[in-house]
């Protein structure tokens, strides 16, 4: 039984050495090649003194090397940190400093954009390019000098496998620490529930720094199947994405709902040959029922499943869509707990909710994170002693998500207890955007609000009060934001105003800001 993620891959390499394991941008690696290449990388990292207790970043667009890198880092005993390939260098620098990366695997363009002062912790810079002219970096071709035998590493299941950075409310991204055991609990449950086989062809739509990709990559490796990495460029164009599914005979799709909605509305699904698609999984935000009904009609052969879970818990609940019940269902439940996971909801008084009641969802089990990298304070707020009984001192994750327990035992998601929002499946703390705005000299006050949107979850609008009238331009604010926060967090619309409305308690009245926004501006 595997207790480390890379063991899933090594076992498949023995059984399916010559079968394709990963496809990206027209290139394929077999399970055997993946084993050999990741062993070489692990030995290269070891030769640079990188191993247990170290972290190595991955910062480049999806390629077959992405999977080699993830596995190679794990095989030397280190932890990988997948970084948004589109994130601005200043954001990457702050993550690099936060978890003091020992190594960075990237490309020359990105490395040059990164301030040298941000690179001080790096003992290794490896480019995913055949050659490099720079003596301080290694090129991918140098890996060929290392043997393809697996390195000897003492690792245990509670070691960190990867750290995923998400938006933090104070303006700094926070790193969710995921151990091998945390991830395997989820991967094992998926293998049992979805019966992934060696003949399956899985898509990978989510970026690799997003936890949906864990299923795509590791369940494909576990089953000896092939994962097809959808390039960032194809994901922008629904018709290309639909053609990709047809062309590669994808049998398992997993994405945020907004990607499914764009496939439905603009992908021409009805004209494609999609008979191979047997399983459609979605997670990350709420899929409106009207779109789910249309999707199930457009893909009559596929089983649909709603997965729910913050990054901190991988996936903790699951709802298999019952086609026969769809017509009566008003809201799509998030379902009930996955295997080896317990969920419960507590009301404001701390009592377990009864059917029909609303409460905050808590998660217990081996899939739950031990906390945020280097941030004991944030960890203590979210990973808490069991509020009802804790004979073993075991901690549980407090999700911040409000749910209603249905009479049939399933849960419904109803909202958040804080200002975190979701847009296209990305978690966004409105405070993270506001912190970025306040860094701009000339900003007196700033407020970010989210306007609900059925297709993508929500659209972001920022209201900015300058110190001096005419002291700031919308363009300068946008430019400032783009250097500090990822594109998905940049408000679509920035409105300069003289002041912000307040509630009776003196807080910024976000409800009024969202309601009274200028008419017709949400789309510009």
């Amino acid at each position: 039984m595997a207790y480390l993620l890379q063991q899933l891959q090594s076992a498949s390499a023995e059984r399916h050495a010559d079968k394709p394991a990963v496809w990206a941008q027209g290139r394929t690696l077999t399970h055997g090649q993946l084993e050999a290449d990741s062993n070489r990388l692990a030995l290269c990292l070891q030769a640079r003194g990188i191993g247990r207790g170290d972290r190595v970043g991955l910062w480049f667009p999806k390629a077959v090397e992405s999977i080699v890198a993830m596995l190679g880092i794990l095989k030397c005993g280190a932890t990988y940190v997948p970084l948004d390939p589109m994130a601005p260098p200043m954001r990457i620098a702050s993550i690099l400093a936060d978890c003091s990366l020992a190594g960075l695997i990237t490309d020359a363009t990105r490395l040059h954009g990164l301030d040298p002062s941000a690179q001080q912790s790096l003992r290794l810079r490896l480019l995913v390019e055949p050659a490099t002219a720079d003596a301080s970096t290694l090129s991918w071709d140098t890996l060929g000098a290392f043997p393809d035998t697996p390195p000897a590493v003492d690792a245990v299941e509670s070691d960190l496998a990867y750290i995923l950075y998400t938006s933090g409310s104070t303006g700094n991204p926070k790193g969710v620490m995921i151990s091998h055991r945390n991830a395997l609990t989820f991967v094992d449950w998926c293998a049992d529930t979805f019966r992934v086989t060696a003949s399956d062809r899985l898509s990978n739509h989510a970026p690799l720094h997003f936890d949906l990709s864990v299923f795509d990559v590791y369940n494909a490796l576990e089953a000896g199947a092939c994962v097809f990495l959808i390039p960032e460029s194809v994901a922008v164009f629904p018709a290309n994405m639909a053609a990709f599914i047809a062309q590669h005979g994808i049998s398992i799709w997993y994405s945020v709902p907004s990607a499914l909605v764009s496939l439905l509305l603009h992908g021409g699904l009805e004209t494609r040959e999609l008979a191979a698609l047997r399983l459609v999984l979605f997670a990350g935000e709420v899929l409106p029922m009207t779109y789910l009904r249309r999707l199930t009609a457009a893909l009559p052969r596929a089983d649909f499943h709603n997965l729910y879970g913050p990054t901190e818990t991988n996936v903790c609940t699951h709802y298999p869509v019952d086609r026969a019940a769809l017509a009566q269902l008003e809201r799509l439940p998030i379902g009930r707990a996955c295997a080896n996971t317990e969920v419960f909801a507590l009301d404001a008084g701390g009592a377990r909710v009864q059917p029909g009641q609303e409460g905050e969802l808590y998660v217990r089990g081996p899939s739950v994170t031990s906390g945020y990298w280097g941030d004991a304070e944030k960890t203590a707020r979210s990973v808490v002693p069991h509020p009802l009984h804790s004979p073993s001192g075991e901690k549980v994750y407090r999700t911040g998500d409000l749910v209603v327990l249905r009479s049939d035992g399933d849960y419904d998601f109803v909202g958040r207890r804080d200002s975190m929002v979701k847009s296209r499946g990305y978690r966004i703390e409105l405070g993270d955007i506001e912190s970025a705005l306040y860094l701009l000299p000339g900003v007196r006050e700033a407020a970010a609000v989210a306007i609900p949107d059925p297709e993508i979850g929500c659209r972001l609008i920022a209201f900015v009060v300058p110190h001096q009238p005419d002291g700031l331009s919308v363009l300068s604010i946008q430019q400032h934001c783009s250097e500090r926060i990822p594109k998905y967090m940049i408000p679509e619309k920035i409105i300069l105003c003289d002041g912000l409305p307040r509630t009776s308690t003196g807080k910024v009245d976000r409800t009024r800001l969202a309601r009274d926004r200028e008419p017709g501006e949400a789309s510009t």
Partner: protein
Amino acid sequence: MTSSSANIDKIRRFILDKIALGRGITALADEESLVERGVIDSLGIFQLVSFLEETFGVQVGDDEILLENFSTILDIDHFVRAKLAAE
């Protein structure tokens, strides 16, 4: 029909002003990849399509919103010209 270079400038202006959202990008060459530079994303593409429909009076079908038609400013211009010629 206006000249191609005038069209190209209009397209470039719109992308820089409305879609690039000031990603520190103040200039875009005709043949630069819009997606690889992160200029166009899944929201921006539909803003751009609406702009083309309104500005050049063309109808763009879902099956034409393709990477090959929108890779670069030059590709977009070729696409619009082909649409206008066909109508």
